């Protein structure tokens, strides 16, 4: 038997390689980053992004798309900085309710055959409205335990790295190894066949959405742990960041082809790309454009490696 890497392994190798290249470039530009503190500074804001990316990936694995991810994480951040700190019980109830709303959205989208894009677009207004009601002006404060969790200093590797590894492993176990994960991805691949095998696609979709809700809630909490306070617009970017993260990590929009480890790597890559740019010191006029350019370059790298994979497949 020939030892050829599986398609999944190559799918992972691509984002991993782009991350490594970028990291090498950053270390070269800024050797100071090559330390415990440096790595933490580089990566700690990637933790909430990674969680949001996993949430988006769950939704994408059932062929849907969540355009409300950013506003939802903002909403969670507002809840965390207010209720979860002052009245933990109410806070927990609200967050549980929010997760339930996600599951219900899955049900509604499935039952009525609605396009998830529009429903989540509508929900993005709703979450934004709730967030503005909670915090008309920025404020609130992170609960002590969240703050200390996010600023913990574990031995060997900084918290940011440890957290990302934990997230990747947990998500991998749920999505790639468990029966529920198989079912969810199965819906993305061929919903009719899952139905024919006698599963309740409704329940599975609700589960996928509910799980996504859980990860998104964790993202909001982690974010507040880092920023110490919240505002209604704090995470708007997460919608596009999370989608980009999934794609960078080798996921696809339809067909249930996703990779949780890849998604976490994608989130790290996106965060690192931003740092790389500020180390380059581009003129302020073009700093925004450079962010676009770097996305393009990283994805072009993906193409290059995809070519290799294709050649591999053709034997």
């Amino acid at each position: 038997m020939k030892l050829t890497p599986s398609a999944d392994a190559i799918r992972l190798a691509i984002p991993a390689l782009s991350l490594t290249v970028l990291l090498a470039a950053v270390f070269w530009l800024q050797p100071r980053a090559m330390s415990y503190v440096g790595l933490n500074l580089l990566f700690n804001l990637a933790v909430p992004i990674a969680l949001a990316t996993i949430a988006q990936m769950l939704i994408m694995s059932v062929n849907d798309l969540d355009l409300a991810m950013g506003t939802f994480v903002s909403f969670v951040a507002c809840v965390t900085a207010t209720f979860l700190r002052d009245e933990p019980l109410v806070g927990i109830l609200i967050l549980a309710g929010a997760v339930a709303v996600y599951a219900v959205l899955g049900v509604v989208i499935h039952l009525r055959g609605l396009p998830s894009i529009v429903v989540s677009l509508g929900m993005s207004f709703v979450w934004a409205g709730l967030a503005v009601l909670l915090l008309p002006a920025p404020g609130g404060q992170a609960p002590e335990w969240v703050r200390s969790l996010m600023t913990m200093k574990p031995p060997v590797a900084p918290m940011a790295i440890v957290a990302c590894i934990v997230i990747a492993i947990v998500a991998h176990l749920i999505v790639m190894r468990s029966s529920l994960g198989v079912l969810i991805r199965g819906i993305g691949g061929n919903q009719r066949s899952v139905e024919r095998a006698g599963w309740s696609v409704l329940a599975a979709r609700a589960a996928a959405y509910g799980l996504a809700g859980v990860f998104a809630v964790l993202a909001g909490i982690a974010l507040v742990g880092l920023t110490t306070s919240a505002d209604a617009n704090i995470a708007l970017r997460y919608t596009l960041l999370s989608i980009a993260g999934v794609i960078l990590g080798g996921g696809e929009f339809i067909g249930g082809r996703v990779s949780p480890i890849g998604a976490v790597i994608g989130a790290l890559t996106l965060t690192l790309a931003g740092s790389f740019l500020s180390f380059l010191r581009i003129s302020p006029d073009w700093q925004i454009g450079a962010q676009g350019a770097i996305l393009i370059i990283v994805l072009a790298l993906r193409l290059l490696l995809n070519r290799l994979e294709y050649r591999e497949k053709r034997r």
Partner: protein
Amino acid sequence: MTVRMSKAIIEVADAKVSFGAVRALAGVTLAIRPGECVGLVGHNGAGKSTIVSVINGGLTPQQGSISGDGEPLQRYGINAARVRGIRCVFQELSLCPNLTVVENTRILHRQVGGLGWRRRARLVIERSLDAVFPGHGIESDRTVGDLSIAERQMVEIAMAFSDSGIAPRLIILDEPTSSLDASLTEQMLAYVRRFVASGGAVILISHILHEILVTASRIVVMKDGRIVAERPGDAWSEHGLVEAMGSVVKGEAHRRTLRDLAKEPVVIAQTGRGLPLQAKRGEIVGLAGLAGHGQTRMLMNLHAASTADWLPRRDPAVTFVAGDRRLNGVFDLWSVLKNFSIASLHDLALRGVVDAEAEAERAGEWKRRIDIRTPDMTNRMLSLSGGNQQKVLFARSLATRAPVVLMDDPMRGVDVGTKQEVYEIIRQEAQRGRTFVWYSTEMEEVCLCDRVYVFREGEIVAELAGDAVTEENILAASFKGEAAA
């Protein structure tokens, strides 16, 4: 063999199903007993797939009753059917392409859950694959999407016969062999016979009557939503079946007219690894060999080489008849009419504006010519039976002015009568100077070609012409790759 008079595994009495104005089943009564293999034949749209859906619980008939093991079943559905050991292989693939073989097993066998399910699922599917297709060479942790269409079909068949706690009792095979080559078909049919001998039951649907005749213990003929004949297997002949189905048998079907094409110009050619391929004006060139050995890719390459992806071409050089119609044939949202006309819009349009009248007229012509069974060409494409969808794809290609027609196993699921008509059309068109490059998994069709290229492992290994085009030669070439040319 006598049919034991044990209780029927499943019995459908007087089932009636209509889809809007279309009456798919007009009162069908069918009982399947353990230890028998029921062959189900009929023209495209006869209602075979529909009765199958009724039996496997996917469709509730508007009228009629269902009973199992002698008891009437009130709330019958997919899960009830699976619990009774009823399994189905659908013609269009119903695995999840993004999952591995093992994961697909997990989905299809609900009871394989719990810790360590991967190991158990692997055992289940590998055991079954080894039993049905010995020497299959399919690794069970490969992603299904990476398998060839034949391998996928094999997995699907093995999946239906696999046992993970609830033993399979009745397996429904709706055109299981359409993507399998002769040797794999033989392996499968042999397994079906063993399965039946050990007390299982099978419903076998196929348009390849030979398969039915050698396997079925009882053959049921359907026509227009009714059962029109039902006799033990050995009481039928191929001729009798065709007659019962209502198709006119054409005597000349299998003869190839020898023509002298030496002076005709070469219209399409492709070189790659292996022997070069070329086809002359008016020639019917066959691509043969075991399924999944690069024939489809060759057709795709030929197509890609002569079509422009950027600029529209007024005079198309090639046209393509898809075999995998779900993937690259049918436009789901559209009517039959639009599905038909998409490839010839240039002829039907003036300055880029489509002439609706001309379009409808052209479609009506072809509806008559190859008998597309639908009351109205503006009906949705998906309301057609599988075989009729395939006919529309045929009409789409033949209606263009392209001098070369590439066909990717286009007769999948087309009934005998229609096949003969299509063969005739192909012959006529070839006479008029059209070139056909025809990949087929059916030996009978390969033998209709003027010249045949045999494929093995992605390259052409042999070229057979004229009287050398025989089943033995092709098989020999596809296995050894060194047959006499």
